[in-house]
């Protein structure tokens, strides 16, 4: 033990620079830390994170949360019917929106895939279009569609569909690009045309991935479908926002638990289907 430490001491005296970080790194570290501390401190001050306000809010949240137990159970069938209809509407919106988005995105994806569309300026233009669609918030789309199609699930379906077009086209195009070139060469060598090559060489490779992407996004759309209702685009969110704004907390908590339960069910179901389609649990996207 003492042998090593004496060796260390000698090394330290021989090459002192090897044991300290260079001045530039030190300076950068100090600058970074102070910028972080200053920014965070300023945010805390600007957003009024005073301990008094936090404690007051936490006590109020505690009293709100106390309405969780015992969970509220509706007594009459008509009340239950309303809630179940809201939940069903959310799932229906997610299903129709995802399906519509996938149907429209499927042909567009080929135009954005490098191995199908060799004209680069056209392909890149299409891709920027996908990016632009994805940058628009689903909630903002829903607000616009409510103006045109009225309150209700139809606006929600269209909002989900339009924002999914951007997401799907990008992901589908990547799935198409990631296919192996060998089957393509084989099918081409046996005298197939362009369309036949796509149908018999590219599609069989890309379809399982595409289906799994669709299922995954269906899951995430059931989650986001709940917030579309808050602005009036149908679904359970409308009922939840209504209960919260009327301070009917016990009912609000029950609705929240039902949403969690529903999402849990859909996750399990789509995970099961995905496992069967793709052969293994795809952990790469989460």
């Amino acid at each position, binding site marked *: 033990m003492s042998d090593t430490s004496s060796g260390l001491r000698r090394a330290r005296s021989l090459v002192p620079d090897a044991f300290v970080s260079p001045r530039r790194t030190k300076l950068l570290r100090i600058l970074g830390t102070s910028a972080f501390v200053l920014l965070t401190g300023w945010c805390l001050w600007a957003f009024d994170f005073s301990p008094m306000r936090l404690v007051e809010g936490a006590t109020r949240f505690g009293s709100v949360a106390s309405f969780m137990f015992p969970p509220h159970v509706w007594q009459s069938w008509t009340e239950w019917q309303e809630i179940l209809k809201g939940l069903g509407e959310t799932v229906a919106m997610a299903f129709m929106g995802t399906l519509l988005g996938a149907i429209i995105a499927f042909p567009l994806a080929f135009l954005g895939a490098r191995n199908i569309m060799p004209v680069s300026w056209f392909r890149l233009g299409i891709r920027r279009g996908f990016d632009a669609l994805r940058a628009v*918030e689903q909630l*903002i789309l829903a*607000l616009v569609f409510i103006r*045109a*199609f009225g309150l209700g699930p139809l606006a929600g379906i269209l909002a989900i569909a339009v924002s999914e077009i951007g997401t799907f086209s990008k992901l589908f195009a990547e799935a198409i690009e990631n296919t192996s070139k060998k089957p393509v060469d084989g099918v081409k060598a046996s005298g197939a045309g362009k369309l036949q090559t796509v149908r018999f060489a590219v599609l069989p490779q890309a379809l399982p991935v595409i289906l799994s992407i669709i299922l995954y996004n269906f899951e995430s759309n059931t989650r986001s479908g*709940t917030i579309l209702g*808050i602005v009036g685009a149908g679904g359970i969110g409308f009922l939840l926002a209504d209960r919260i704004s009327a301070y009917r907390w016990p009912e609000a908590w029950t609705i929240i638990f039902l949403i969690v339960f529903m999402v849990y069910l859909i996750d399990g179901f789509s995970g099961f289907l995905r496992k069967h389609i793709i052969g293994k649990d795809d952990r790469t996207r989460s």
Partner: protein
Amino acid sequence: MTTASPAIQRFELDYAAARKSARRLNTISTVLFALCFVVTAWTGGFFDMTDVTLANGDRVSMWKIWAGLPRLGEYLYKTLPVLHWETLWGDVGNWFWRWKVWLQLLIETVLIAYMATLLGVVGAFLLSFPASRNLAPNRIILNITRRYLEIVRTVPDLVWALIFVFCFGVGPLAGVLAIGLHATGALGKLYSEANENADMRAVEGIKASGGSWFDQVRYGIVPQVIPNIISYTLLRFEINVRSSSIIGFVGAGGLGQEIRVAMSLQEYTDLSALFLIIFTTVIVIDMLSEKIRHRIIGLTGKGV
């Protein structure tokens, strides 16, 4: 030559059986899918009809989507600003007439996202270790933290914001807490998955040399997962900027409240200006964080 060998016969039989079962599966799934389609189309009101008055005064029944499209075009047309080439600067000035307020709110939006990400990172980092299967001290703690993270991320941040606006009052504080809580759940899941995929040999080494649970996590796991954590965090920051730009809709600070005001006051051109501001911010932040992510991971072209 004419009589097939038994092996081929067996193959033909098996093949026919496989074809049959595949066909049965296909039929069943097609029928189920069609059923889902009809039920959801009916609940979602997708094929609803509506009465519209034509230009010549006739009232006809029309598919709702078809009838709504002209209204959608009209609405979008109204949001376009009037810009003339000769007086371009003045027109743009008129279009962005509230730019001082908007700039302030934009900064607030980005800062809300920053603080929420910070909260989410701290919460998720601490909870991810008890929530990963290979590191949890016991099953009870594992299950409690996992269920907590699940519930917290399943409830959308807008719902948390509705609740927190009631508890903490209107303002960015509620927004930070709402997005931060949601981000804790989302990041906690990703972090714990990174922990589970980490190489356990380092942990075993530290355990063998007498390290405590804390030492095992600190020196065995954390160095392995830091790159993953940084890249997930930057991705989350992008998502949080999007969330914080709309969270003001329920009164939790940021640009969202301006959208709500412009909508209810029917200030159409304001809407397009706000939309443009959010759009540009989101794209700029996406690009910046992608650059940083690629530099950190040392990859080019493939992110996590």
